[in-house]
């Protein structure tokens, strides 16, 4: 969850595993969009002696489709390089790391960010420093300062960060993958136990974040800031990916591996939970390797999602209307719109994120003309907050509850007004309220990583 170890192959390749992608109008700089892609799922903060880092052999990409053709018109590429100052010690650091140039910090990582658009490739920055991992009070006594030093200003009013953060995604993994259990409703489960509050499985774990903040006018198809929510140019399709070279040679005579061949995509992520829940196990690796423009192949899994059929079975008598819908010939056009085309004008008053409908392509679709909410609702569009998921995705959005409710039929009336959703579809929830340190109000909007001294993998 949302795409942590979601497919068989990528689950064995953490540094390339895109766990979450976010795209939203920056709440404190509404003339910009912030796009975040996270990697390295379920990092244990106490990760020494070799603390986590990005893959130097991985190409990380953020794609923007601004004309609805399912292909990127703008790409940001990120590549990384590690530097070892002192190979004669086993230590990541030989003293406190008080600044990014600290001589006691032994293993550092740097990155290059490149923008590719119709004008060609432009290196926006190189040798940009990542912060260290958050080790503990002796090694990283003022981590916030280190992280702030690692926020880099680029040309054109762009800002970038790449490094460790806490994982802001909140989900009850342990419950959901125990036969679709939701603790607050498990008394109604086919195998019932007493109801309990949800457990935030990721709340003490970290990820590695790539975040870039870009002026809206640098992303739209016409180079302007759209003034109307209904403008086609207001909608940006966004997704992230990771790619590896086609061939790797491990030579016993060399300490470093040789690689050659084109970059081959091994992970991608737009909408949360799509590959995780919608795509069946036998197709997940293929989905990760495909481009969104080819997603019509997976249409049937959106039109008749497996989870929709499971809910009435796992919660007997709780979803009778959904059960009827599942057994009918009706196809879930609401989910097709949410995941593959965006919601056209006329479905939700004053809103659309339909970028043309030329292709069925899975990606986040962000209408940049919708201003940031002054009082965000974690349920996004379902909570009446037009600035939240599935209009792009903010870090705070409870995408698990939103997605479960949508699959449970809550969004079906958008396309079939006569359908009356089950009462449970509106009330079902994973029952988690994330702790406040998971996010922050300024770029990169994700809270600092948990340190390894105070956050072991299990709670005390």
């Amino acid at each position, binding site marked *: 969850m949302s795409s942590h170890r979601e497919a068989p192959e990528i689950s064995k390749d953490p540094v390339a595993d895109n766990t979450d992608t976010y795209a939203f109008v920056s709440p404190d700089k509404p003339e910009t969009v912030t796009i975040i892609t996270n990697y390295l799922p379920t990092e244990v903060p106490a990760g020494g002696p070799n603390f986590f880092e990005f893959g130097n052999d991985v190409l990380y990409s953020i794609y923007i489709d601004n004309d609805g053709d399912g292909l990127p018109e703008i790409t940001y590429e990120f590549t990384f390089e590690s530097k070892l100052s002192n190979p004669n010690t086993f230590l990541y650091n030989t003293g406190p790391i008080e600044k990014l140039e600290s001589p006691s910090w032994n293993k550092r990582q740097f990155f290059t960010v490149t923008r590719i658009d119709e004008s060609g490739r432009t290196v926006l920055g190189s040798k940009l420093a990542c912060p260290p991992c958050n080790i503990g009070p002796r090694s990283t006594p003022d981590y916030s300062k280190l992280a702030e030093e690692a926020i880099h200003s680029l040309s054109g009013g762009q800002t970038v960060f790449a490094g460790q953060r806490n994982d802001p995604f909140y989900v009850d993994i342990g419950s959901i993958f125990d036969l679709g259990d939701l603790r607050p409703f498990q008394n109604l489960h086919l195998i019932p136990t007493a109801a309990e509050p949800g457990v935030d499985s990721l709340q003490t774990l970290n990820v590695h974040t790539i975040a870039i903040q870009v002026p809206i006018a640098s992303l739209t198809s016409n180079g302007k800031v759209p003034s109307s929510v209904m403008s086609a140019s207001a909608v940006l399709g966004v997704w992230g990916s990771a790619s590896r070279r086609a*061939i790797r*040679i491990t030579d016993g*005579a060399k300490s470093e591996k040789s690689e*050659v061949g084109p970059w081959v995509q091994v992970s991608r992520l737009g909408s949360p939970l799509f590959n995780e829940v919608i795509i069946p196990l036998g197709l997940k690796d293929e989905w990760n390797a495909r481009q969104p423009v080819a997603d019509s192949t997976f249409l049937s899994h959106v039109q008749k999602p497996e989870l929709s059929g499971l809910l009435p079975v796992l919660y007997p008598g709780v979803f009778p209307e959904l059960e009827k819908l599942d057994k009918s010939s009706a196809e879930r056009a609401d989910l097709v719109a949410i995941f593959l085309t965006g919601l056209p004008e006329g479905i939700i008053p004053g809103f659309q994120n339909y970028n043309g409908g030329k292709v069925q392509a899975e990606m986040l679709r962000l209408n940049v003309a919708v201003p940031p909410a002054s009082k965000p609702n974690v349920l996004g569009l379902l909570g009446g907050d037009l600035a939240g998921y599935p209009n792009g995705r903010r870090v705070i959005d409870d995408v698990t509850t939103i997605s479960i409710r949508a699959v449970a039929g809550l969004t079906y009336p958008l396309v079939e007004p006569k359908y009356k959703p089950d009462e449970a579809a509106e009330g079902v929830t994973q029952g988690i309220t994330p702790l406040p340190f998971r996010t922050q109000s300024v770029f990169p909007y994700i809270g600092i990583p948990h340190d390894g001294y105070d956050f072991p993998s299990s709670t005390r």
Partner: protein
Amino acid sequence: MFKLSRLTFSRSRSSLASVIPGPGGTVEAVTPEGTSRRAFLEGTGAAVGTAAVVLATPKVVALANEAPGASVPIEPAAKPVSQSGPAPYEPVTAYVRNAEAGEVTVMAGQQETTYKDPVLVKRLLDAAR
């Protein structure tokens, strides 16, 4: 007629080790330490076998080496084509280890052999352009 493509890409894993050029041939397997694989096999009494491969003459190889840009009428030049299907589960793979030394490493199954084969190196380099 040259059949280096067969030597390199069509050989089964089991026959790979036994296909060693005869006297005067120019394709020579070398271990990473530089020991001749042919000498090793001969020393152990292993049969060279009847390699179904016609090897380059020294003159042709010299031409290939000395005039890398020249058109050597060995076989038709490689032509780019659309892939006919996905890569096999364990593809036979060759890579140029040392272009100047004419060394090419071939991996098939769990076997890895490095050959001194300037002609094949040239063909690969030509194909890489």
